[in-house]
């Protein structure tokens, strides 16, 4: 988004235009001050009813369980609920019966519960994703934030 804005500014005649591409996620991660109003955090919207499975389970068994849950994704966790991977729609739609480990996408991007919901929504929109995984700092699953629910929460105001 910011590269497009920078190009437009140049087209409008500005000749000293810089793109801070890493953006406010980078600024905040460095511990630098950010201004704004208090707002909802990711942990508030993280749903703990997300389906989970273990590495060694068979995809077919997982698929049938997920199918009745109302979700279209399943998180792969270890016995301590540390997130190892994710089965998305495409993986769940496979018609071969491999193990979860063979079908999953490893190491999904995760967020801490204190991440601001607006920032998380921006991240999901920017990648055309409909959900984001929230974990503790040691990687244990807290839940999944759904984009539609997060947008509704932001629209409701503080």
């Amino acid at each position, binding site marked *: 988004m910011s590269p497009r804005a920078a190009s437009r500014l140049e087209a409008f005649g500005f000749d000293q235009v810089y793109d801070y591409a890493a953006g406010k996620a980078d600024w905040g991660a460095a511990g630098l001050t950010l201004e704004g109003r208090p707002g909802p955090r990711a942990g508030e919207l993280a749903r703990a009813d997300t389906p989970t499975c273990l590495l060694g389970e068979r995809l077919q068994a997982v698929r049938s369980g997920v199918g009745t849950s109302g979700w279209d994704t399943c998180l792969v966790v270890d016995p301590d609920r540390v997130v190892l991977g994710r089965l998305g729609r495409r993986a769940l739609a496979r018609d071969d019966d491999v193990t979860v480990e063979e079908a999953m996408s490893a190491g999904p991007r995760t967020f801490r519960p204190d991440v*601001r919901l607006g920032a998380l*929504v921006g991240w999901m929109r920017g990648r055309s994703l409909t959900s984001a995984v929230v974990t503790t700092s040691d990687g244990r699953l807290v839940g999944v934030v759904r984009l539609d629910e997060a947008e509704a929460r932001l629209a409701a105001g503080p």
Partner: protein
Amino acid sequence: MPTEIGRDEVRRLLAEGAQLIEVLPAEEYAEEHLPGAVNIPLRELDRERVREFDRSRPVIVYCHDYQ
């Protein structure tokens, strides 16, 4: 072509008087933004909106991350 810069360069330019624009939607800006940043959502970025900016000073734009 715009120059991509990192955090240290942003801080240096701001100290020298650069102008800062966040191009995310207003709701995201309201929730959290860099100190001193002005919000112009990308969809609203046109010649009229940038009239208030000084063309003789650097302008830094940013969003959430590499989107």
